[in-house]
């Protein structure tokens, strides 16, 4: 899952990005509205964390312009929490709201829900045969037994599971699992896929040669 955080307070941006990365997300950052809008329009992020008060282009303007081309789920961060502000945000096309100061746990939970809803799922439990993915606890179990996965591996499974039945290209995977700071080697993905096959069974992820991967 790749997330863009647009926040102008550097310390808050850094700590949010770090905490989200530790949660297994690929995180891009932008310190102002213009940069944020450019990035949000250029990539298909799984979610956007957008601060309302930004220098230059403010959060409302970013949201309004973004909605002309993208349906990316947007979580607004705001210091103003009057009902009028919330209504305005939701009407402009925000998907959810978090009022500063917030708890990281709440922010994570809301982001998970946002991403889940965007993928058309309403529960945080995905079942594929004997495999159960708990997106809230970020745990995978197979036939009732927990499977140890690295954060990246988990992200890969989750992404494929959320796009079950679709062919997910390598480009998509790169775009959603690695952020702009990752100096990814092109074979890193193959390493992750091969590790997953060892842990979850060789037949779990099928390779469509020339297209990408798929979970049937």
């Amino acid at each position, binding site marked *: 899952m790749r997330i863009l955080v647009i926040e102008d307070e550097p310390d*808050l941006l850094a*700590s949010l990005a*770090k905490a989200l990365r*530790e949660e297994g997300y690929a995180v891009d950052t932008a310190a102002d509205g213009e940069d944020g809008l450019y990035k949000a329009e250029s990539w298909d992020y799984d979610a956007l964390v957008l601060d309302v008060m930004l*220098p230059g282009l*403010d959060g409302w303007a970013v949201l309004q312009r973004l909605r002309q081309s993208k349906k990316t789920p947007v979580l607004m961060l705001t210091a103003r929490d009057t009902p009028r502000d919330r209504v305005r945000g939701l009407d402009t096309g925000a998907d959810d709201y978090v009022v*500063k*100061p*917030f708890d*990281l746990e709440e922010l994570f939970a809301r982001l998970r829900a946002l991403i889940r809803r965007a993928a058309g799922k309403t529960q945080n439990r995905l079942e594929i045969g004997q495999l159960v993915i708990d997106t809230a606890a970020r745990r995978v179990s197979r036939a009732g037994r927990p499977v140890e996965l690295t954060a990246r591996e988990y992200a890969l499974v989750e992404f494929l599971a959320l796009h079950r039945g679709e062919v997910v290209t390598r480009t998509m995977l790169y775009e959603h699992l690695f952020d702009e700071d990752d100096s990814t080697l092109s074979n890193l993905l193959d390493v992750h896929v091969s590790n997953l096959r060892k842990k979850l069974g060789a037949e779990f992820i099928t390779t469509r040669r020339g297209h990408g991967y798929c979970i049937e």
Partner: protein
Amino acid sequence: MKFFHSIRWRLQLWHGLLLVVVLAGFGFTAWRLQRATQFQRVDQELDRQVQVIFRAIGGPGGKPPGHPPHDGFRPRRPEERRSEPAPDRNEEGPPGPREFAMPVLDASLFADESGRTYYCVVWNRNGREMFRSAAAPPDVPCPELAVGSRDSRLRGTTRELFSYTPPGERFLVGRDIRDELAGMRRFAWLLASAGVVVLVLGLAGGWWVSTRALSPIAAISAAAARISTGDLAQRIQTADTSSELGNLARVLNDTFARLQASFERQAQFTADASHELRTPVSVVLTQTQSALARERPAAEYRESLAACQRAAQRMRRLTESLLTLARLDSGEAATTREPCDLDRLAGDATELLRPIAEEQKITLEVEATPTRCEGNAEQLGQVVTNLVSNAISYNRPGGSVRVKVAAEPGAAVLTVTDTGQGIAPGDLPHVFERFYRADNSRNRRAGGGAGLGLAICKAIAHAHHAALEVASTQGRGSTFALRIPVTQARK
């Protein structure tokens, strides 16, 4: 007693008292007048009757007693006057020519045309009864009367008129005036009931008038009560605006409006202040929650602590600014004013900022001529610091900031000019407002200023009765000028 404290009840009470006094006075006077008229009429009748009787008993002039020259009786001769006998001579002596004689005792003499019965009693000068008509009550006392005069009296239910005859007999005519007295009583009752009716009407009218007059007060107190429960948007509804109470209502409405505006400003200020605090609190929360989520290398902890420290310092700056503003608003800081050298003060404050200016490749120029003014050195120093650090923050790299202090006629003037991007004309009127930021965001380069720096400058200027003005050309830079009035021009 609650209603003794009510204006309406007190008005009503006074109104009622006045009405009672006026009505009682009027009624009593009317009754007295009526009574006097009545008695006068009775007396006239009695007088007429006296004449009738006199005529009947054959007096030549037929004139009543007391009307000289008189004569139902023989006129006295001068010699008789001289030889006025002793008082009892009349009693002892044989009936003389001056002795009263009642020749005819015709009952018709003692009644008039309307059938009223009169009586007549005559005493000689010694008070011995000489004649008594049939209808006379048995106990008519002999009236005390000065010689030659006449008088009347009310005795029980009878009215009596008496006089002296020239020879000295006391002649009394009376009649029963029971009917007249009953009429008087009826009249008194009529007056009393009319008075009661007028009193009731007057009280009702007074109640209506006071209700009407006091109704704006009811409206005012109702509105004030609603406002005191917290609804500051309430106003007094008044139809008439020209009366005294209408004026009062208008004045109160103005006051309420100003109160409301001040409350709203205060609420806005508090909301802005809390919003300003939210971001640094968010930093502390996310940093600590993320740092505590797992074991980390020492370097990461240090990084988190440093971020928390930055946030805390930002909060400290904000609370200091808020406190400064609160003190300036309450006027407690404006008390200490002493002569100070504005040029030295500006130079010192600017020098402190030189390292920051150099860091950002900005040239700082100070051009100060000795200038003295009255003021609080610490506060004026803060104005210089705020203006200069703003000028540095909003400058372009390689730009310059010029601080100039000069004495002008009647004022000490400090100007700070920068070569930054300037301020948009739309923002210009608002730059001194609290928490106002030209681009609606925190300006990082200004070190996270909350938008209070210029507001503090303005408040300090206000406390010094000084003018703080700004002029700006977009793209060229801005100039802030502080003009402190000086009572006597100094070189």
